[in-house]
């Protein structure tokens, strides 16, 4: 790939978010303000990197439905300030403080005695929201949310087209993703709710595209953004790096590892400043930023038959060694890994968590039939022609499900009910893009491997 192709590997809108993320986190780390001018300047730079294109939505009925949904989300976003709990209490309040002068130099951020429920939460969405607020006002800045929804929904068409899927099933897949009720409706986790799950979902879809198509720059940008978007974004990035390396998608693996290392190097020291303002930030806080590189090296070594056995031994021993050293004790991921290693999970809650996880797969009111379609498509593709290149995507969904279960089993006992009731379906929805990508790529695979007995009754045509 030449330089031009590498740059054009990433859509304009994602470049824009990535440029804002890098410059804003860099400024905050250096104690400089994030100036409102960053928004238009990075927008112009992003347009120079990759020219914006109008998404081709195809049939008027599809375009109309997408427009209605986008307008409904836009209305829900700007009609009033936050109406959902986490949007109000966690994400937007950080944006409002950032919007005051573009800095973190407020007792709200720096003084541990000041009430802040979201201390140390990732800042990407608050930064984007604060910049939007500085140009469009408190409510106008919330147009970020329909924009993110469009980034999610319009991202699916490209890879399905490149996989050779016909126009009609392609539009159907885009519509399927767009009409997932959780994001379209009001309520916790909805696109207009101000929660950060939509931002994560949009990035995760593009990460999955990078994984499916072995695209290095796209993998790097999504790897960079995921840890900055939400705490669990680091897990998503590690899943992307590990699977790309294991599946031999070398360019995507290297890109994702590099991007995630940079993203963590920018975010982890800042997070430590915010979480424990009294403690100095040392070089040790950068240690977690090496995790994606270590995972990339191990995954690549396991993929190669020459180094597989040694790599597997290292893969088992290295985390144990790091945990024994207490290297990551100050980080969220370190604490979770330590609890995992010591088996300090809520084992008694596992049946309930697993049960709720299975129920979520058929949680029609929130996710429609998305995961029923994933299972049915994967099963039919497997029977007809083998999963082939769909394997990494399916593995990503399975690993994501496992990570969600382990994360919930690591919650305090008194909090598990709340997470089961309200959180689990949102975490599942963060993977709705890869799910529809797998469905669409599965249909494309079925279309190129027709079976005489079933070709009229399986994939939408």
């Amino acid at each position, binding site marked *: 790939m030449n330089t031009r192709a590498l740059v054009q590997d990433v859509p304009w809108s994602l470049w824009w978010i990535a440029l804002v993320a890098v410059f804003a986190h860099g400024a905050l780390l250096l104690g400089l303000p994030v100036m409102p001018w960053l928004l238009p300047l990075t927008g112009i730079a992003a347009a120079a990197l990759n020219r914006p294109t109008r998404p081709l939505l195809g049939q008027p009925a599809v375009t109309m*439905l997408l427009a*209605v*949904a986008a307008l*409904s*989300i836009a*209305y*829900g976003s700007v*009609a*009033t*300030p*936050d*109406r959902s*709990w986490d949007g*109000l*209490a966690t994400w*937007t*309040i950080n944006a*409002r*403080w950032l919007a*005051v002068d573009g800095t973190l130099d407020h*007792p*709200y951020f720096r*003084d541990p*005695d*000041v*009430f*802040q*429920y979201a201390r140390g939460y990732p800042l990407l969405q608050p930064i984007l929201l604060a910049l939007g607020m500085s140009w469009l006002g408190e409510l106008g800045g919330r147009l970020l949310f329909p924009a993110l929804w469009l980034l999610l929904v319009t991202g699916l068409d490209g890879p399905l087209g490149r996989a050779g899927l016909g126009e009609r099933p392609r539009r*159907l*897949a885009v*519509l*399927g993703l*767009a*009409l*997932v*009720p959780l994001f*379209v*409706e*009001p309520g916790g986790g909805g696109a*207009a709710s101000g929660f950060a799950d939509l931002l994560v979902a949009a990035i995760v879809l593009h990460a999955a595209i990078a994984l499916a198509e072995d695209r290095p720059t796209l993998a790097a940008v999504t790897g960079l953004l995921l840890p900055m978007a939400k705490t669990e974004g680091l897990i998503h990035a590690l899943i992307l790096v590990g699977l790309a390396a294991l599946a031999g998608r070398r360019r995507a693996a290297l890109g994702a590892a590099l991007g995630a290392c940079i993203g963590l190097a920018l975010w982890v020291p800042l997070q430590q400043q915010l979480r424990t303002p009294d403690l100095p930030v040392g070089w040790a806080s950068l240690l977690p930023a090496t995790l994606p590189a270590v995972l990339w090296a191990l995954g690549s070594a396991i993929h190669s038959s020459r180094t597989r056995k040694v790599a597997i031994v290292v893969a088992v021993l290295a985390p144990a060694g790091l945990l024994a050293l207490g290297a990551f004790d100050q980080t969220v991921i370190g604490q979770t890994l330590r609890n995992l290693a010591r088996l300090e999970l809520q084992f008694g809650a596992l049946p309930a968590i697993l049960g709720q996880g299975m129920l979520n797969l058929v949680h*029609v*009111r929130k996710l*429609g*039939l*998305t995961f*029923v*379609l994933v299972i*049915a*498509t994967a099963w*039919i593709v497997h029977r007809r022609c083998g999963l082939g290149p769909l394997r990494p995507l399916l593995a990503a969904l399975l690993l994501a499900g496992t990570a969600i279960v382990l994360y919930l089993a690591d919650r305090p006992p008194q909090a598990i009910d709340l997470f089961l009731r309200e959180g689990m379906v949102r975490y599942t929805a963060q993977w709705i893009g890869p799910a529809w990508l797998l*469905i669409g790529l599965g*249909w494309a695979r079925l279309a190129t491997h027709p079976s005489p007995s079933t070709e009229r*009754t*399986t*994939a*939408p*045509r």
Partner: protein
Amino acid sequence: MLAVLVTVHVAFGVVRLVSGGIVKRVRAVAEYEEAGPIWHFRHSEPDAQRLAAWLLDEMPRDHALLYEGVMQGNLQLLAPLLFPAILVRSSAVAPDGTAAGRPVFRGQPPWLDQGTAGIPVIVGGISSLGWVRR
């Protein structure tokens, strides 16, 4: 089979777009506009609603309000709604009577007969808000 499943999914999605995405959303916005920010406390105890409404009306936004109690629950709602006022742990009052560099709010809800001695502290609960003077 896949065609049937995706058709059902899309049809259900269209129904939810209309019933949830539009009708339910318009209703929620109307309710919020009628009630104002206190709408967030609609599931809280009546005393907590009354106290929160009074604070939203009366508290100067350049002041700090002292707090105790659990962080999860009603304080999560009150703190952002009072922006740019801040809530500061009750134990963190400076010798000069300020908290986090701001004057401490010393008002008293008129319906609570607690006198004016001491400094008021709001006590957070899951669905409650208490008011004491320390």
